[in-house]
């Protein structure tokens, strides 16, 4: 029973991790809590749905399509709503702008598709595999594998490529990177693009897993993924992965062993505890202030 719940938790956690990565990368580079990120995730789910149903495409192509669409969406959002505010005004204005985008996008989808839940078709035939005493579904395996591949790919890109190095430089010191000749605007756009693509993947997989999508699914998932990013250490990429997985597991186990009606509160209780006890999260570094 426990192992089954653990697998459930890891599956859910993988989706949280994919969304959390976007939050953490954006925060790491421009110190913005991108409240609109949850809506990108939601758009990913819907685009994937559309591609599968209306365009009749294979699920993996749909996944790629959703990721591509959201990459563009993320880039556009950054350019329109965040870039004009960069460096000029308080962080609060950027935050409010992000909230504005979030409201805009969720309302847009609600207008396009209605506020009701749409079912995701059964695309992947569910086989159940038996590993010892535990049942694992093929869907869970796919989600875990795809997520793992994406996260691995991200880590490799960040650590081994030139653009990854530029990303790391920018998140350390944006001004210095600029002075070093790095095209900071391009790197920021790129960061948004990657984060959005991952969130889109998360959206498609959640749609498949829970068989449901609705325009406001981004809000709660966004807040929870954000909690996951903080748990792992906001600004840290491995942190977001660890945080997302941990949160998923904690939520599922919490529901199984404690209470199901407080499910949503678990993420936030964890968030508050982490911030009080260890604000830099599991993998974050403590930054002391210079006087």
């Amino acid at each position, binding site marked *: 029973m426990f192992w089954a719940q653990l697998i459930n938790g890891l599956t859910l956690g993988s989706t949280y991790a994919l969304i959390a990565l976007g939050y953490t990368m954006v925060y790491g580079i421009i110190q913005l809590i991108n409240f609109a990120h949850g809506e990108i995730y939601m758009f990913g789910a819907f685009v994937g749905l559309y591609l599968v149903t209306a365009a009749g495409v294979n699920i993996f192509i749909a996944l790629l399509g959703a990721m591509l669409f959201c990459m563009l969406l993320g880039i556009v959002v950054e350019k329109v*709503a965040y870039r004009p505010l960069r460096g000029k005004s*308080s962080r609060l*204005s950027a935050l409010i702008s992000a909230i504005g985008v979030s409201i805009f996008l969720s309302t847009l989808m609600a207008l396009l598709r209605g506020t009701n839940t749409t079912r995701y078709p059964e695309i992947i035939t569910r086989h159940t595999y038996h590993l010892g005493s535990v049942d694992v579904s093929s869907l869970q395996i796919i989600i875990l594998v795809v997520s793992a591949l994406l996260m691995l790919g991200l880590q490799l890109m960040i650590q081994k490529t030139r653009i990854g190095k530029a990303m790391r430089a920018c998140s350390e010191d944006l001004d210095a990177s600029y002075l070093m000749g790095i095209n900071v605007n391009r790197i920021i756009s790129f960061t948004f693009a990657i984060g959005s693509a991952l969130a889109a993947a998360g959206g498609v997989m959640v749609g498949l897993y829970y068989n449901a999508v609705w325009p406001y699914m981004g809000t709660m998932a966004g807040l929870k993924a954000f909690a996951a990013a903080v748990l792992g250490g906001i600004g840290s990429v491995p942190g977001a992965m660890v945080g997302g997985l941990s949160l998923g597991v904690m939520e599922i186990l919490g529901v199984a062993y404690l209470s199901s009606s407080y499910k949503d509160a678990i993420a*936030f209780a964890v968030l508050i505890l982490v911030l009080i006890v260890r*604000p830099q999260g599991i993998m974050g570094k403590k930054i002391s202030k210079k006087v």
Partner: protein
Amino acid sequence: MDAFLTQYIDAYYLRILVLIGINLILALGLNLTTGVTGQLSMGHAGFMSIGAYTAAIMSVHLGVPFWIALLGGASMAALFGFIIGIPTLRLEGDYLAMVTIGFAEIIRVFFLNFEPGGKAVGFSGIPASTTFSTVWILVIVVIFLNARLLNSRTGRALYAIREDEIAAESAGINTTRLKVLAFTLGAFLGGLGGGLYAHYMSYINPQDFGFMKSIEILNMVVLGGMGSIPGTAIGTVILTLAPELLRVVADYRLLFYGALLVILMIFRPNGLLGDVRVYDIKKRLGRKEVKSCQS
């Protein structure tokens, strides 16, 4: 008084005025915490709901008179503000915001499971004791006390914390203590607004106090210009009226609201009034007087 007024003013406009009043109290509370002291609180609706449910329960289940219920609700909210404030106010800006979001969500889930509050079905049958005069008398008192506070030693210290905490400490200000104070006072007003709200709508529901509500109030504080009472007032009036005015475009209402926020932030990131404070307006009026004397 209300009966008197309804003879001259349409009930619909009266309702809007009451809502503006309630929102003003909520916004002035958040203004103290976020606008003046610079502690970003994105969970103000949490205090509102504590105030609302506490006051409602006191009225309905305990038969307590209206004003006492209001006080009870506000005090309960203040208590929570105090308890939460102490461990969290030493956190940096963004982290504090995160905690407040988390706190408000936990409160919401709590009330969804809270038997005496009616859980998800909500709490109905609350006596409609809030009248136009109730609200606006309180608004005037709150504005008056606020203005006094902000122009005093304590108020200046709060502003100083927002501007530069380190410099504030070097001037002898116990920043943690004052941050908790601002947070608690803000929570008190949030609870007061909540109690008034509950006794106006006669029905409350945990969904009324979700994240969006916190954001709405935050926008009221930010829109007009943080830290100033006239700024908060303007922001509140505009953002309370906006949904009503936007009713014309009905379904597209929120679309406009979202876009409006983005546009406003891009063009007026410091709010419509920037940082105008009462003495700025007086100074400008003063100048005009001098000019007319000279001619």
